[in-house]
């Protein structure tokens, strides 16, 4: 983990760009730019790999946290009857549609040096402009999605199943796990949806990560920067990779949802 949060990058994107620029490659995008983008991807360009790898690591870890919180929360909301349930569901639905950039802003304010968390100077609170801060923002964006879809999946399981499972001798805990296992396809869809929501998100990671070259630059923020700077080949290469990742996510999701319909 420590290595992940403060690894130093051997090759900076700007350097890469400079090298390519000095070889008088066209940088204004058309035709050549696309070929160059493909070349960057298929030669395994180091700077590109760094960005892709950081994106996957930040969103992957955020997804892990979101799953650890979202799946139990969704199961509790879908199966339990307790005081405050409706209120939590209302908050969760709000969270599912909350603008990520606003979450970024809130996390920014919380983590900034004078903020309530940043001022604690605690070793467990990540500082702004680190991958850790980005993980926090993305976790907050993704967990309502995971919880919401999990709740829906769990509520879709035959109501008589819990009773039957208990009649066969299941404890409350075993009953919950059995219902989650019955809703497994929907639970997987919830996790994929959470990942889709954060890998392609730009506003929050820009705010709390700061898009620092070699430290907090991810696919989305790099695309913004490279496009602004006119480095269209790199921006295109990054865009193509992001597109490929989201495409894979969507195909996976559709396949899983199709599976729900089959079953």
């Amino acid at each position: 983990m420590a290595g992940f949060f403060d690894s130093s990058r051997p090759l900076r994107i700007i350097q890469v760009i400079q090298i390519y620029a000095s070889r008088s490659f066209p940088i204004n995008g058309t035709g050549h730019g696309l070929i160059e983008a493909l070349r960057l991807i298929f030669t395994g360009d180091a700077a590109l790999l760094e960005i892709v790898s950081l994106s996957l690591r930040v969103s992957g870890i955020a997804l892990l946290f979101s799953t650890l919180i979202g799946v139990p929360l969704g199961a509790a909301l879908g199966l339990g009857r307790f005081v405050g349930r409706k209120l939590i569901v209302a908050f969760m639905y709000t969270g599912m549609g909350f603008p990520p950039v606003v979450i970024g802003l809130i996390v920014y304010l919380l983590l900034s040096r004078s903020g309530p968390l940043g001022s604690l100077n605690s070793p467990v609170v990540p500082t702004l402009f680190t991958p850790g801060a980005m993980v926090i923002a993305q976790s907050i964006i993704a967990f309502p999605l995971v919880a919401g879809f999990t709740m829906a999946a769990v509520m879709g399981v035959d109501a008589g199943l819990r009773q039957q499972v208990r009649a066969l001798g299941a404890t409350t805990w075993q009953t919950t796990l059995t219902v989650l296992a019955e809703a497994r396809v929907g639970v997987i869809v919830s996790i994929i949806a959470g990942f889709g929501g954060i890998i392609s998100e730009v506003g929050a990671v820009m705010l709390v990560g700061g898009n620092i070259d070699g430290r907090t630059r991810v696919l989305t923020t790099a695309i913004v920067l490279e496009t602004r700077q006119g480095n269209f080949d790199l921006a295109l290469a990054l865009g193509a990779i992001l597109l490929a990742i989201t495409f894979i996510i969507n195909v996976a999701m559709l396949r899983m949802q199709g599976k729900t319909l089959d079953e």
Partner: protein
Amino acid sequence: MNDDQPFCYRVQNLTKAYGSRQVLQLDALDIRPGEIFALVGPSGSGKSTLLRLLNFLEPPTSGAITFQDATVDAGRPAPLALRRRVTTVAQRPILLNRSVWANVQFGLQLRGSRDREGTVAAALAEVGLAHLARQAARTLSGGEAQRVALARAMVIAPDVLLLDEPTANLDPYNVGVIEETVRRLNRQRAMTVVLVTHNVFQARRLAHRIGLLLDGRLIEIAATEDFFANPQDPRTGAFVRGEMVY
């Protein structure tokens, strides 16, 4: 089985209410070890509710249920160990979306035990479905699914098997297989059976004793022969002859 006790269940002054609505009121009911006790009565009379109480899925509102050597009082959930000596096969066979084998093995899995003696295969063979072990449960027909549900129940070797209209909506062949299996479990393994049915003919075919439940109250309990030939309550006669309007 506890042979020195005259009852398997002893229900005393039991009531069950949902909200302000009382759905069961039983003064006394003994279910004897090793018998097949049929509970008949029109729809809505409280038969399924009584089975849920006997399976310790819900506590009674008042009164007590003594089961073997333990007594479960009103308002308190029964200990897990007690609940695990009983199981229910319901009208609708709610199978897990897994293989037939995994479904039958499920009760063992819950108890943290493994299928060492081939109990799963034996149970499937007993309901005539050994050849479907590897099939996905969702592909079964209604009758096959119900037989799997019965196999799933017998694998855990319960002291009591509760059956809630297990053959409603099934074709005669599957009804025959299920009735024959229940009879065998009762005779060969001395399993106590409580059979809820609205089919008096099924009660007559299987049960040693029959109780009639009307509006949450037991109207009459009698040995099967007497229940049909010599009913004490006119409503029993009416129910048996199919004259009861409900």
